[in-house]
């Protein structure tokens, strides 16, 4: 059913008229032109489409757009503020925590929601939270290092 949907996207108010049953991923990538969230499997297994809705990581390929009414959506494009990278983005660069880069947006945003819930995760806690995000190139070791380094960097509430 076509309906008007108001929400905030990367801090900016958005008003959209579309079928509320459509999945957020396609609305972001097609209607709103934000291609940072990727299609990987379409069934919520891989996490390449991960975005934040009210600071919780969700699988946007499984998330009907009617459910974002009045909420705040953040995609990878909204993570760097005023031209400065988020500590997670910096840490992913500094730890070479990516190869082909296709899973990277989802990895970073899932890690972001982890650090909001748990500012100082242990290695095991990082693994547990990241387990449903797939990386085929095998950058896992570096991704864990990057997340822990970012957590360290953010201590003292520099950025969240």
């Amino acid at each position, binding site marked *: 059913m076509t309906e008007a949907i108001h929400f905030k996207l990367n801090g900016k108010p958005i008003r959209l008229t579309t079928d509320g049953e459509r999945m957020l991923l396609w609305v972001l990538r097609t209607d709103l032109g934000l291609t940072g969230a990727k*299609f990987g499997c379409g069934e919520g297994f891989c996490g390449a489409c991960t975005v934040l809705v009210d600071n919780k990581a969700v699988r946007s390929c499984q998330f009907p757009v009617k459910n974002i009414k009045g909420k705040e959506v953040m995609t*990878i494009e909204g993570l760097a503020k005023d031209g400065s990278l988020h500590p997670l983005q910096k840490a992913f*660069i*500094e730890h070479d925590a990516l190869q*082909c880069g*296709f899973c990277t947006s989802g990895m970073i945003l899932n890690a972001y929601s982890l650090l909001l819930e748990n500012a100082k995760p242990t290695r095991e806690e990082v*693994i547990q939270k990241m*387990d449903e995000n797939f990386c*085929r190139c095998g950058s896992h070791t*570096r991704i864990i290092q990057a997340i822990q380094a970012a957590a360290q960097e953010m201590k003292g509430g520099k950025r969240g």
Partner: protein
Amino acid sequence: MKKAHFPVSRREFIKLLSGGVIVFFSYGDLKALQEERGRRGFPQSLPTDFNAFLRIGEDGRVACFTGKIEMGQGVITSLAQMLAEELDVPLSSVDMVMGDTDLCPWDMGTFGSLSTRNFGPPLRAAAAEARAVLMLLAAENLQLPLSQLEVKDGVVFDKTRPENKVSYGELTKGKRIERHLETKPPLKNASEFRIIGKPVFRQDALEKVTGKAKYAGDIRLPGMLYARILRPPAHGAKLKSIDTSAAQGMKGIQIVQDGDLVAVLHEAPDMASKALAKIKAQYDLPEAKVDDKTIFEHLLNVAPEARVISQKGNIEEGEKLASSVLEETYYNSYVAHATIETHTALAKIEGNKATVWASTQTPFTAKEEIAQALGFSPENVRIITPFVGAGFGGKTRNKQAVEAARLAKLAGKPVQVSWSREEEFFYDTFRPAAVVKIKSGIADSGKIVFWDYCVYFGGERGSQQFYDVPHHRTVTRGDWMRSTPGSHPFGTGAWRAPGVNTNTFARESQIDIMASKAGADPLEFRLKNLSDERMQRVLKAVAEKFGWTPSKAPSGRGFGVACADYLGTYVATMAEVEVDKTSGRVQVKRVVCAQDMGLVINPEGAKLQIEGCNTMGLGYALTEEIHFKGDEILDLNFDSYEIPRFSWLPKIETVLVETRDLPPQGGGEPAIVCMGGVIANAIYDAAGLRLYQLPMTPERIKEAAKRI
């Protein structure tokens, strides 16, 4: 540095090339290049006897034009490093222009860990040539002898008066100097390196962590439509009837059909999917002949004549020397590439010209295929390769790009084709299922005396053994690429280190079984039967880092070792595993990998590739196999086809055993090849269970436990 995509026409491109110093050079498969010489497909005003060039422009920026592509393996960084090193410019001033068939000269494709190995030396030579040209210009400009000049960061200066200087950019102003690299200019010694061998961050990282990096599916054109294509339920199924009426009625839906190609188009991809689901189609299904259980027997039955890969001595003579003879059979399943980015392409047709943005490892092959499919002249087809979301050999095939081009022509609008995960599993060209039979023997001395090896359909690469064996024979029956008709029920092809994963698993398992028979420690047994110094060195290096102490297997420790020579890169791996015999679950706790890949250009990049190989290799070792019944692929998504994830992660340590006087060898593939063998050997050491089939799933572990 950035990955440059010049949105320019050919005329503008030639203009863009008009100034500066340009060095043309060639690399790699010269035979293939010669065959290609003079053929269609080159920008007409460019010479045709080279396959790469670099240019130092008036703005001081350096661009390298190559048909190679970046898919995560990091050549965008390592190639730029080599260029910057030899030219003495900052890494940040280098632009890599990759995989654009209008801007870049012909290239065979990006695969086989070839980019750094084949491309590196001529690229460095071309850069050295350009540097020599610039130095001559500088000598003239500064009125100084060459011996008095030095270069740093693209600025040539007087050694005695550094303020007397001129930049590369200034030197090239208003000039067009072309050089064809024919002689080999002297290259820097390893001791002079400032950029090569130093860890640098990936040059594409910033774009990739900010979501700005564009992949084929991220390109947007005005008026573009998204296609979803009707697919058969099984390979070889014939369309009997089709009812599109329910889909026709949907708003904004366009249905196109061209022979076997039936697609729905919409300006939103999800709406196209919705419409596709409403199409009713009936098929005649081919008779199911084989499945994932009977495939091995089938392959043995249809195997063509043996082809000898290598032999020495006489197997019968060798058998007489043996005090212990072992005859074993090893099996490996079909494995998918399963890149997170599925095959994707966007095609735009204007008149008789086509432009296609494609996720491909072979843009120049795609160009020919699309030209043929559309009936266009190849010079009117341009392939642009944005970042590729990994390939591992799977994106050497361009079916999706041809589909997008055909649909764009039919629709009269730009069309994107992006395969679903189900389509990706269906049309993937799998690593072939294979069987390896080995008969080998040892003498009382603990020396291997004969080795009789036959690989069925796995591929010959990596089948030649490197141990000291007086009597040996290696043969192959059926190949991984040009397979015998009637052998594989669906497409097979190159998968990260083609052939070598299967051959290394079989060889290193057999070596371990012999070591155990001989009552010897697996590492000592290998060292005793090896004279290759580089192999000795990587084995000793890995043992030292791992902390290996000699013991006969099974020792209960869960330690394994395996080694391989992959196209000149030597790799030795040790692993520690834990086996739960009740659940059949294997946890790999630690992997140590030593690799000798000649000169190392980017140590961080090399280590990352090794770690990636070790991690990815857990999959084909433990879980990954395609389930199928006849021509129907039963794996539709990542629920039944399990790829490695964070919770599987062992502690991974890498050792680079550098041979600096040896040119750089490939690093994107070698470290994956030991993973099947090393884990099989570690499982045996842990629990006394010998697994002969990959992947070593919980079910197979439990079966093996029952056999004891």
